[in-house]
């Protein structure tokens, strides 16, 4: 019989697995509200959503690069001066907007469909 710690780790692992897809959706949603830079995006992700994603730089920056490489994000460098290093601002491209819509629809279907199982009716 699995120990309590094993079960907790199993649940934690499952959370990480489903948060992988969720992070992409959350990141695009934040950028849908306006352009932003890595640190600010990370802080927003950590502050919102009741901490379900609790991402770190290890997940956010590679995903930003991945989305930019895929053409879903556009970026520009903005220098603020006063000794502050230039920041790379990201924003959604037209493809990024379409991807966000698609992900939201998919998420809605997933959540509705999964309610039968997750709600404990079965």
């Amino acid at each position, binding site marked *: 019989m699995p120990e309590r710690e094993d079960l907790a780790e199993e649940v934690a*692992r499952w959370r*990480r697995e489903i948060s992988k897809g969720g992070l992409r959706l959350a990141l695009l949603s934040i950028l849908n509200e306006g352009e932003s830079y890595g640190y600010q995006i990370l802080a927003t992700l950590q502050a919102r959503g009741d901490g379900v994603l609790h991402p770190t*730089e290890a*997940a956010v920056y*590679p995903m930003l*690069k991945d989305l930019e*490489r895929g053409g879903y994000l556009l970026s520009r460098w903005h220098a603020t001066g006063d*000794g502050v*290093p*230039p920041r790379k601002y990201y924003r959604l491209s037209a493809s990024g907007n379409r991807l966000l819509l698609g992900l939201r629809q998919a998420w809605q279907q997933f959540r509705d469909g999964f309610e039968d199982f997750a709600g404990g009716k079965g």
Partner: protein
Amino acid sequence: MTTIHDRIETITKQAALDAGVDPDSDARRELASHLFDLAAARAVGREMTLADVEAAWLEFSPRAIHLLREDAAPAIEAAATGAPFVPIPRTASWRRRFAAYLLDVAAMVATVVISALVLIELMSETADPLEILVMIDLLILLVIMSVFEARRGATPGKQTFHLRTVDAQGRNPSWVRALIITVPKIFPPLLALDTILGLLTGVRDRRRLTERLTDLRVIQVN
């Protein structure tokens, strides 16, 4: 006097070099921007100091590699599954590589001299054998060094100095690639040219031209 800007530039450029990434790349600049914001978050309500930068870097540096890495997929996967993520190993310094090379050269010279003396003794009847024998010796050494690179990922000199030659996936070089990067080592003028061209072309990532062409990298493994 070192300013905060200077210190952030120094830290992040060194991190980029260690990761084999161009210090002038967007990724490095983004790392600098992120480090600044982390340090600023520590100094809320007061003026930021160098100590804030140092403290932020101390905490953040293990994750810094994720901002520098070009291939994002492994980091995303590791973050999602909780699997340990192996960061890019530290690219070996030129000084350490040169020391390893000197050791290899010493071993090669000793081998050539001893074998040439033995063979001259045995083949004293042959006309003008020295050049031919040295050439044969060098070709044999070329093969032996290539075998070391391909099978163990390092020549004896590299093994002594805890260096390894790896491809982009962290594997030992293929036979052909091992041979290509070994040829210049057998002919010092070619090695000098290979190194200079490596320094002049492309990014400052401590690679000889042949290493860049074969997508190989010498890393420090300790």
